[in-house]
């Protein structure tokens, strides 16, 4: 998992409440045997004018010019700004997979749905919750100035705007630790690698046939 410490990222505004995981990545793409490669189909129904299906060459499809991620000024954005209850609906882990695969490293919103809130950080995606008024203000600023970037500092738990305003955000200490160290559950378990090896050494004498 990619470590997250600081990021000075271009911001894309998705001005919509209750962005559900079906919208993030529609069901026809779940047949995939991979957890990468979902980026071209992120927000498929909003992004393209035709119907998407797995295995298509998305570069040949007609783009919806009105969709934010299709506008030239938001290319290469790494921070997604959105409204309340982001990530609601089905529990598919494909949703954070798709956001990360597209290139997003953080999502800022007033609130997130539960399951998505758990899934996202496991995949290195930082979720930042800011109050509704602040998010509103950020939307205005993004829309007003091209090339709008936010400086996110996870260890300090701050977001700094281009004008130098510092916004603090809350973060669960365990999740913060995992993100900073780039540790997924597997990474955390592997911190106990010595204990696992010691267990194996002990068992090799007691139940050697297990290790044949």
């Amino acid at each position, binding site marked *: *998992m990619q470590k997250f410490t600081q990021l000075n990222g271009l911001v894309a505004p998705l001005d919509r409440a209750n962005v559900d995981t079906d919208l993030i990545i529609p069901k026809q793409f779940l*047949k995939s*045997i*991979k*957890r*990468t490669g979902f980026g071209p189909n992120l927000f498929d129904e909003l992004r393209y004018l035709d119907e998407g299906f797995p295995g298509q060459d998305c570069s040949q499809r007609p783009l919806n010019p009105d969709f934010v991620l299709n506008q030239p000024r938001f290319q290469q954005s790494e921070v997604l700004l959105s409204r309340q209850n982001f990530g609601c609906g089905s529990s598919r*882990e494909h949703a954070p997979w798709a956001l990360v695969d597209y290139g997003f490293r953080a999502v800022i919103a007033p609130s997130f749905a539960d399951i998505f809130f758990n899934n996202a950080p*496991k995949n290195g995606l930082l979720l930042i919750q800011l109050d509704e008024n602040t998010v509103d203000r950020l939307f205005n600023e993004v829309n007003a100035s091209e090339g709008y970037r936010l400086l996110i500092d996870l260890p300090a738990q701050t977001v700094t705007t281009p004008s130098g305003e510092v916004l603090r955000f809350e973060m669960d200490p365990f999740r913060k630790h995992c993100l900073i160290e780039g540790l*997924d*559950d*597997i990474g955390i*378990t*592997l911190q*106990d*690698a010595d*204990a*696992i090896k010691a*267990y*194996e050494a002990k*068992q090799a004498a*007691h*139940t*050697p*046939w*297990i*290790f*044949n």
Partner: protein
Amino acid sequence: MAQTLYDKLWDAHLVKQRDDGTALIYIDRHLLHEVTSPQAFEGLRLANRKPWRLNANLATPDHNVPTTLKERAQGVSGIEDETSRIQVQTLDDNCDEFGITEFKINDLRQGIVHVVGPEQGATLPGMTLVCGDSHTATHGAFAALAHGVGTSEVEHVLATQCLIQRKMKNLLIQVDGELQPGVTAKDIILAVIGEIGTAGGTGYAMEFAGSAISSLSMEGRMTICNMAIEAGARVGLVGCDQITLDYVKGRPFAPKGEQWDQAVAYWNTLHSDADAVFDKVVKLDAASIEPQVSWGTSPEMVVAVNGRVPDPAKAADENLRKSWEAALKYMGLKPNQAITDIQLDRVFIGSCTNSRIEDLRAAAEVAKGRKVAATLKQALVVPGSGLVKQQAEEEGLDKIFIEAGFEWREPGCSMCLAMNADKLGQGEHCASTSNRNFEGRQGYGGRTHLVSPAMAAAAAIAGHFVDVREF
């Protein structure tokens, strides 16, 4: 202190107790199949990780494989459905890349993962065993701690050989007495589920004991543990005894020579202590269990074959009434209809619950010299593995089935979940030896009735359910 079997297995695999109440548990054996493993392997690759201990893993494709000789003849490339073919091919590629032992599609040892593990001796007493499939409880019949896991846990086990777990509570299902002739392990477990409900075992490790259990063969015990999950328990268990040891001895992955003796000494301790305390105990009288048939859309909706479909008007409460009504509607049945009046369209003998050699023998004994009813569209027999198929053919069971009008297929999950071409049509009733009668499980709009292999064979001959004891 006196311990249950589950307590003993837990303690023996505890790598580390953590402060937050979770524990790191070591996993001895990991079985893989094509459906729940691709993203896990992909995860390993992305993080640049290797499997922690290669020889802990054993893989075989089962869910998607076609069961007709024609489609099987060309191996993976002959699989007509593209998504199925890609999934099977991906398992092959991943196992080759990482060096994991796999019994590929037309290997004689290929089969349903829960049939293959025990058959190879890859499932051993005292092991912790997981697989990305909820019917992994099957392997608990060997006094092994076995349960299903999700895809992220498949990856976790591949990478660390451990799982982060919380300890469950202990539930004892005590079945004493002697079964009537014609009543089988399948009927015991269906009766247990009917008794405690599909959530009765939630949060528990469910141990089966009593004279009716200890007199069962290993195959019967596997049938019982297989469906522990249908009673809500992720783990089913039976203590180790001489029957267990006799089954395991000499199998390809089983210990040999000095190690065998060392293993047996340990395995003989793998049963609950006489004075062990269980959090909950349920007792059943084996002699009063009759052949069971499920009538509804949940495995707890079962009755004896000579019983009737329940009447929602007589349901104990409003929620139950609603669920019975919905089930009757989906199943196209009337309140108080006799079970023996249900006309069948198809019969399926197979699945990880009932596709082993004893299951096929029991069905063949009923089918011998008889004919499948002309009203049936199809009667399928799908052996659980290539080795089961071979054994059955050596015993001439295939001929008995074919002469009676059954189709004799190649091994796989087949119509248990209908991921391949073997499916029910809308509204069709099927007598099935599988484990789930959920809506759409065997095909869109299909109506599943869970029964034992002997009951399924008898139903195929009669065209409707009959009491195999009088057949």
